[in-house]
């Protein structure tokens, strides 16, 4: 599979390295001539110096519909145009774009861009999560409907020493697995919650606070 990366400096550099290591062939398209020269020296990648939102540049790339096309520039509009041109020219299904304005995620999806990533949104979530208590880690922060948390059971936990069926976990949440030392326990009603257990908990995002408070206690 070919991976095309349009724009982006540091992200393009590190993604190129990662994709080449996985054995894909990489095509880099960038407007910055010095960056192109540098990438050509460092990597066994095809480097195209040009405007990735220009139809004539895109059409020269000789892509197939199962190739991956990624737009990484600082400008959302350039990324949208690049992806749409690639879809138009080669019927590429897997187009991915970076959006700087999180509101544009919805716009890009409507225009048929397969994967839309907003670093701003990811950072916002990460910063919010860093304010969570240390026993809890949000391990599935991409949806606003469902939340999956990793919860460490401590001495203060109100459910410590209780069987799941007696633990009175709110109905909107369920414990999917318990990591106990090196083992994984798939919990049943009679499974006992022990100290140092790490619970993988699925819950309705709206009930997040209630479920987590039941598991680790109120602050």
């Amino acid at each position, binding site marked *: 599979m070919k991976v095309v990366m349009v724009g982006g400096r540091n992200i393009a550099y590190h993604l190129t390295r990662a994709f080449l290591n996985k054995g894909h062939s990489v095509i880099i398209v960038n407007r910055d001539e010095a960056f192109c020269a540098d990438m050509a020296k460092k990597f066994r990648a095809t480097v195209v110096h040009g405007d990735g939102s220009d*139809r004539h540049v895109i059409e020269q790339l000789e892509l197939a519909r199962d190739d991956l096309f990624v737009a990484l520039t600082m*400008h959302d509009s350039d990324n949208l*145009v690049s992806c*749409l041109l690639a879809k138009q020219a080669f019927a590429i299904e897997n187009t991915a774009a970076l959006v700087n304005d999180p*509101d544009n995620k919805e*716009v890009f999806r*409507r225009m048929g861009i397969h994967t839309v990533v907003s670093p701003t949104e990811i950072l916002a979530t990460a910063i919010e999560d860093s304010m969570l208590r240390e026993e809890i880690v949000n391990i599935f922060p991409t949806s606003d409907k469902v939340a999956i948390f990793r919860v460490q059971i401590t001495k203060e936990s109100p459910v410590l020493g209780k069987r799941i069926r007696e633990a009175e976990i709110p109905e909107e949440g369920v414990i999917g697995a318990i990591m106990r030392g090196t083992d994984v326990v798939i919990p049943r009603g009679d499974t006992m919650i022990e100290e140092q257990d790490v619970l993988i908990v699925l819950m309705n995002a709206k009930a997040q606070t209630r479920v987590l408070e039941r598991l680790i206690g109120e602050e």
Partner: protein
Amino acid sequence: MAIIKGTVKKKEYYIVIIGCGRLGSRIASLLSSQGHSVVVVDRDEDALQALSYEFSGFTILGEATELDTLKNAKLDKADIALVLSPDDNTNIMIALVAKEYFSTPRVIARAYDPSNLEVFSQFGIEIICPTLLAVESIKEALEIAGDES
């Protein structure tokens, strides 16, 4: 009152103009003096203030690439969107957003570079290319016959 072709016929249209440069401000004054409701959006306050006294519509200061700005401009109620910022790709994106997100019946965008014209015409937006128009005008001025004549 001028009737604008291609839209439902009305006496007055609600027109949102994005980009208040030389072209945007002139069109805004023209349409406004003809009695249409015109809203002009630009990120530069000076550009909005430079609108002529003939202009009696509203102005919105903001980034037109942000959905909130376009919502403020009530693009969902607009009959026509004219997208006239200086950057081609920005115009194409805003025009696509107007068409797809706000379902604006007529969307006209300016793009200087002729190369992407055909591709984006397929998305139901009309693109005016000053470069091609200038080529035509110069051809005419020099009386060069085109291929078809």
